[in-house]
């Protein structure tokens, strides 16, 4: 089969849509690592929680907006609870313990989903208005995925503005570099951490419900996403938001193009890519200088 420019372009756009989900998950992961130095292995579970909370809400209300809100709120609340009750006692004990703890949290959350909603998973269909596709000139593309990319970009722009321009953003930027000085200047850092953990979990939950119409919801759905999101954060540089965004979209496109040229290697490609980046730049593309660097 001929590989035409149109095909490559279509594939690249597809990769952006793929990357959008990575980015949403990875940004939260990166924020949490950047501020709390917690490697959150429960992040995939928060993604799953968002999908389930959203679908359940949709079944009761029939509203997609309500589903989105529920996804964010429920996963954020579970995130907040996890941080406040479980993760907090471990601060100052290095990165290993929180990592292991969040691993345990994900075990429990995944099983909770099985108990509450069964093992076989749930499904949600797109509203009529979001079905269908548009012609990009070089090929047909589903409308929902375009909106997903656009929505992610808008969200990222808002996040950027929030971090660069607001009081909270200043706290976040300073907190990522030097939480001690924040404490000395009267900021209750533990509340900041709580908020960030909840926010990151909420973002993951949002990504979950946004991805659900595309791939359904299963208790284990977070596993693969978590691994991908880790690859993204590590390639971008742990704790770097810009890195997460660049690496997320970049890896989405890279994986998508690999499927065009060597489909069987698309999974492997991601890890090989990550290994190479880390061998050249041991701290990822955007180093560990800190958030937004």
């Amino acid at each position, binding site marked *: 089969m001929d590989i035409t420019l149109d095909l490559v372009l279509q594939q690249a756009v597809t990769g952006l849509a793929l990357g959008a989900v990575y980015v949403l998950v990875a940004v939260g992961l990166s924020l949490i690592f950047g501020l709390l130095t917690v490697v959150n292995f429960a992040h995939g579970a928060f993604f799953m929680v968002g999908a389930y909370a959203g679908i359940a809400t949709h079944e009761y209300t029939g509203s997609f907006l309500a589903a989105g809100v529920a996804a964010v709120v429920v996963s954020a609340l579970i995130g907040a609870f996890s941080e406040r009750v479980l993760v907090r006692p471990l601060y100052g004990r*290095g990165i290993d*313990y929180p990592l*292991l*703890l969040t691993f345990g949290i994900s*075990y429990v959350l995944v099983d909770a989903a099985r108990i509450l909603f069964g093992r076989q998973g749930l499904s949600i269909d797109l509203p009529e208005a979001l079905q269908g596709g548009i012609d990009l000139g070089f090929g047909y593309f589903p409308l929902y995925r375009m909106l997903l990319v656009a929505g992610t970009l808008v969200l990222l722009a808002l996040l950027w503005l929030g971090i660069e321009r607001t009081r909270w953003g200043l706290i976040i930027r300073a907190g990522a570099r030097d939480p001690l000085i924040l404490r000395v200047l009267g900021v209750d850092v533990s509340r900041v951490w709580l908020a960030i953990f909840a926010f990151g979990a909420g973002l993951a939950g949002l990504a979950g419900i946004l991805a659900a119409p595309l791939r359904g919801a299963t208790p284990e759905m977070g596993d693969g996403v978590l*691994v991908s999101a880790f690859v993204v954060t590590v390639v971008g540089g742990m704790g770097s938001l810009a890195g997460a965004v660049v690496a997320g979209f970049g890896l989405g496109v890279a994986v998508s193009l690999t499927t065009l040229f060597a489909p069987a290697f698309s999974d492997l490609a991601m890890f090989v890519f*990550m290994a190479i980046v*880390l061998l050249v730049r041991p*701290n990822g593309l955007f180093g560990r200088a800190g958030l937004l660097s």
Partner: protein
Amino acid sequence: MSVAQTVPAPTGLLARRFGPVGSLALALVFLAVLPLVLPYTSLAGTVLVMGLFAAGYNLVFGYAGILSLGHAAMFGGGAYTTGLLMLKLGLSWPLAVVAGAVAGALVGIVFAALALRTRGIYFAMVTLALGQCGYQLAITFADVTGGDNGLRGFVAAPIEIGGLVLDPAQPMVRYYLMFGFAAVALAGLARVLVSPFGMVLRAMRENLPRARACGLDVRGAKALALALSGLVCGLAGSLYAIHLSTVPVDTLGYHLSGQAVMMTLLGGMGTFFGPLLGAALFVGAEHLVSDVTEYWQTVVGILFIGFVLFCPKGVWGTFEGARQP
């Protein structure tokens, strides 16, 4: 490195209370009586294999203080090597097991060469990636490895030692044959830990910058730790192949790497007996709980969270710590 900071008051490389010989003896007695107390022999076999795996992992995680999330590559590498040598070359199983251990060490050396440039969480992630590469390769080259169906078709034939015929098809015979290999590996591990190299590891774990300032070759020591760890984990994988008569592709999966961390932590990292105990608790809990409820993951998860929060030194670490003078 982080682990060094997180371990409060390390309790010597071998249990001080028991001394190197005592610790080794305890470990061997424990493994020797296992099939007699567990409800069935194959469970004891799984505990032995996982215990050896955790003990090998502990060398890196507990003693050298580096978190690896890719040790399944060493375990699986050993298992596949053993299986393939028996299947394709008809090698006798004891030789194939030794070769599997060596293969595990080679994987450890590859890890050291590729991943030691990075540190901390990045090291963990590179090892995770390397481990996944192994898994993907096994899936991709299904013609050789059997893909997701696993490698199968090799049989551990009876061996004769001084007129005594030992048939691995018999559960008890197989268990104690495996025990023999494990005993040698554990004795070797104990020997390494009391050697000067063991002292270097201790220095690194307790204070990495100081160890570096003292002119210790930290990276070299880490590389050696990875290779030795690979040797033990590769042996564990090889024994697993004999134990199951098949090599599932899951032996290369990241869940198994995660399980190594859990078992080590549960038992007590940086202790000699801890990982064995941790493996027994983990495998045992999973079996027992999953017999009682389908929702065993919740129980295991809560147990795990509880250990991280309240008993971070693990069962054996806490016991030993409490008995310190």
